[in-house]
Structure formats: C-alpha cells, structure tokens
C-alpha cells in the first residue's frame, strides 16, 4: 500500500455500501433448515466460483451468503439460505416477486484456470455443498480441462441433504464417464431411506484411487472437518499448496472495513473466504 497517498486524491467508492435490488424468482424448501433461492439481478453478477455476496432484506439486515451457482452470463443468482438468524429466518418467509438487496461479488474464489490438467477432488460437509456447487457446475461443463473430478459429499442425515436431484444427476454422469466419481455419505441414516454410504467424509479418502502429484483439493464444510480431511490428505502425500479451504467468518461489510472477519492479520472477506491452505496453515486462528 502506498502510505503517501493523501485522502484528497482518492476517489471514494460511492456505491460501496449500496445494495442493488434483486427480485426473487423462486424460493423452494431444500431440506429441514435450508431454502433455495433464485434471484434476478439488474445486471449479470460476474462472479468467480467460491465468491460470496452480501445479501440483505431492507429494514431487517444484511449477511454474507455464498454464491451457489457457477459463473453465468445472465442476471441470475442462486443461493441456499439456512434459517440461522434474524435475517435468514425472515428470508425463509419471503415469496417470489419480493426483493432482496445484493452487494458483491466479494472475496477471492477458486482459481479454476490454475488447476487445468489436474484431477479436482471436492470434499464437502453439510451446507458446504452450496458454495461448492458454484465450482462443480463449471468444472462439469468443462471436463476436458481436467484429468478427472471426484466429489465426496457428506451430511449428517438424509433429511439434511442439499441439491438431491442435481447430485444424483452428477452421479448418473459419473456412471457413463470414468473421469467423474461421486461419493455421497451421511453420518447416520436416522432410519430414513438412504441410497449412499454411511460414514464420515474422511473414510473414502483412505482408499480413494488418486495421483497425489496431480490432484488439487477444494473443501467446504465445518472447520472440524478440515482438520481431519487435511490429516488424511497429507497421509496420502498431498501438500498444503494443493489444498483449498473455504472459511466462514462474521462479516458486516464484505469489503475489508468492518474488522469482523480477521483471521490473525488476514481479512477473510478480501484474501478469502477461499484460501490455498499453505497460505494460512501457519495462522493459529485459521481452523478454530
């Protein structure tokens, strides 16, 4: 940063905190606690996989929400909202035709170009599938750029599974394409019907066929999952620079100003929320 810049020469970003209004096209229940929303923006969002938006309901509040759709040229934004607070609870009660505020896209995102020619392994826990879908969609649409794609997606119970139909579509794709593998798990079935495996996402990693030198990993889930998955990956010979994690923090601005999302000296909303693990492995607050 240039410390000699004086405020008089800096042009303020007048729109920094002003949301654009997005119309709700669809709002559908997805699982016990999550709803899926398709929104129409005034202009294309122009995001990268793994970025987030600040989503708001005027008069109620604003919160960071992962973008759940792959990059697109139209004005559509898709998100998954878990009923976890005042704002998200309110959003669950909204109807098509109503409006939400959107700022962004913000954050680093996944750098797909840098992974060209490699095998991409996505490890997902619970709600982590929502942001990971923004990566999976462009990867599956552009499979020839990768030597392969594996998804290991776990959640606690069958009732908590997200994107049920779409994930089964990916599974069908895998049946006809040896480059694609999809493994679905639940921690426990809770006596509900379940057509996937039972266990933690770390279990398949023991025996998963992979070329450690030619694999990149993208992970999205709870911090405790990261700790154990990273241990497994290291045991399989992967290095920190091959692993990418998507971290959650409290964010009130999305633009590196409010101070809430700091992980040691790193601003999660600016340098993250997606990090190459070797760049944060030394930060004590990273995987808390």
């Amino acid at each position, binding site marked *: 940063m240039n410390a000699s810049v004086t405020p008089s020469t800096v042009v303020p970003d007048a729109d920094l905190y002003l949301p654009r209004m997005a119309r709700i096209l669809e709002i559908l229940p997805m699982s016990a606690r999550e709803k899926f929303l398709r929104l129409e923006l005034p202009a294309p969002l122009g995001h990268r996989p793994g970025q987030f938006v600040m989503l708001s309901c005027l*008069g*109620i*509040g604003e919160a960071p929400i992962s973008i759940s759709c792959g990059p697109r040229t139209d004005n559509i934004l898709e998100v998954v909202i878990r009923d976890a*607070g*005042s*704002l998200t*609870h*309110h959003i669950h*009660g909204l109807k098509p035709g109503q409006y939400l505020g959107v700022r962004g896209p913000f954050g680093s995102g996944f750098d797909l170009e840098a992974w060209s020619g490699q095998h991409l392994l996505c490890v997902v826990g619970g709600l982590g599938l929502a942001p990971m879908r923004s990566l999976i969609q462009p990867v599956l649409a552009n499979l020839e750029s990768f030597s392969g794609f594996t998804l290991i997606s776990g959640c606690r119970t069958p009732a908590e599974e997200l994107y049920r139909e779409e994930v089964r579509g990916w599974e069908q794709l895998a049946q006809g394409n040896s480059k694609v593998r999809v493994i679905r798990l639940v921690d426990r079935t809770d006596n509900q019907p379940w057509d996937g495996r039972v266990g933690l996402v770390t279990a398949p990693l023991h025996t998963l066929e992979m070329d450690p030198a030619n694999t990149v990993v993208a992970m999205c889930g709870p911090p405790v999952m990261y700790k154990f998955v990273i241990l497994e990956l290291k045991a399989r010979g992967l290095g920190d620079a091959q692993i990418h994690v998507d971290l959650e923090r409290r964010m009130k601005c999305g633009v590196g100003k409010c101070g809430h999302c700091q992980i040691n000296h790193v601003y999660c909303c600016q340098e993250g929320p997606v990090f190459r693990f070797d760049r944060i492995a030394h930060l004590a607050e990273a995987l808390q």
Partner: protein
Amino acid sequence: MKPKVAFFDFASCEGCQLAVLNCEDILLDLLALVDIVEFREAITGTAPYYDVAFIEGSINREQDAERLRDIRARSAVLVAMGACACIGNVQARSNFIAPAENFKRVYGSEERNQVQSDPEFWPLWAHTRVRAVREVVKVDYELRGCPLVPEEFVHLVKSLVAGTIPRFAAHAVCVECKMHENTCVFDRGDTCMGQITRGGCQAICITNGYRCDGCRGLVPNANMAAHLGLLQSKGLDNREIANRYRLFCSAEPLGRVGRSGHE
C-alpha cells in the same frame, strides 16, 4: 390480523406500563400495528389467546406463579418487561433475609408472631422467594431496565410485527458511555456497576450525572471477581459492596459467608 397483545402486572410499580404509555410521539403508530386486549393501566378485559403477553413485575406468591403459568399457556410469545420481571429488581433483596425477619421489619414483632401462629395468615408463607419471570415460565424476550427503555420496547414490537428476531445489547454499559463521550464515573470520584451491567439504556443514568446501579442485570460472563476487587480498592466496605450488588441484580460476589451487613 393484527397481533393480540396483552399486558399483565405482578409485583411492580407499574412504571414500565407507564413508560410504554409515555411513548406519546409514536403511541398511535404502535397502536395501529397491534390489538391491545388487556392493559390494566388503560383498559380491562380478557381474551382466551394472546399473540404477545407482556409481563410486568416479579413473581412473589404461589398464586402469582399459577396465574403466570396460565398466561404462558395462552400466549404465543411471552415478554418479561422491566427489571422486576427480568431479574427480580429491588424486591428480590428480601430473598437475602429470612421471611420472619422481613415480617418483623415491616410489621413489627407482634404481627410477625401473629402471622406465624395464625392459620389464617399461612398463605402468606407461601411467599418465600421473589422470583424473576424466567424462574417460573419460559421467557421469549426480556425488556430490561428500571423502567424499561422505550426504544427497546418499540424495537421489540416492530420486530414481532415484521416477524424478525429482535436484537438486544449484550455488551456493557461502558460501550454506550463511550458513544456519549461521558466522563467515567470512576473519574468523577464515584463507583459504578457499568462494566458488569448490560447496556441498551444508552447509559442514561451516567449521561445525566448519576452512576450505573445495575438495573439491567449482569452481562453474560461478568468478571465479578475483578469488579469486586475494584470496588474494594476504591475503599468500599463489604456492607456497601453487598448492598450495591443486591440492589437490583441479586448478585453475590462476596459469597454467602459474612454477608450480614445489609440494610
């Protein structure tokens, strides 16, 4: 349908209901949002069901507890309103004194002996303890303070009408003192409960030249040991300290040993 709202009072001065009525500039706007079915300070009536029940006052007698449970059973949302309902307020100080001793102080020895021996007065002995509302029934929201803060009341009503979860400060009074650029009470030569007391009051007492006596109750994880040490270092004796902590929020950082110095 406008939400049906009711106000009930138990052991209190009813000052919180008056504080609500004193929201004159917006009272009509508030009334436009809700349908008030019971309000002892303003109207009377009964209804079988309430969307929101505001409870003012502490629960002192078993018959009060029964009445409260009945209200809870008929209410979708129950709000403890004011320090009496939230933390027992000043009347909870009597919890530190044996009931017989309280009777003696208030009515004299002779009357004390009479209420102890005459079966006609035995129901009075069911009054053994002043309780906050949450000690008797589940409380959805708390409007703290003696009296409640009108802005918080309005915020709660707006949130309930909008279907959102209201937010109340969990930080110390000090935050609002700094926002108002108040001179710290300790720098004025007095002592203060602000560091361990929940904010949300805009530090109104300190802003107006007094100190914080803790009417909004303790912050979560209040550092009582540090505060006790601070009061002791300012020369307060244990009797003064016990009175300070018990005045509103029934706190006992000194422990139960050697606490006989209360007034």
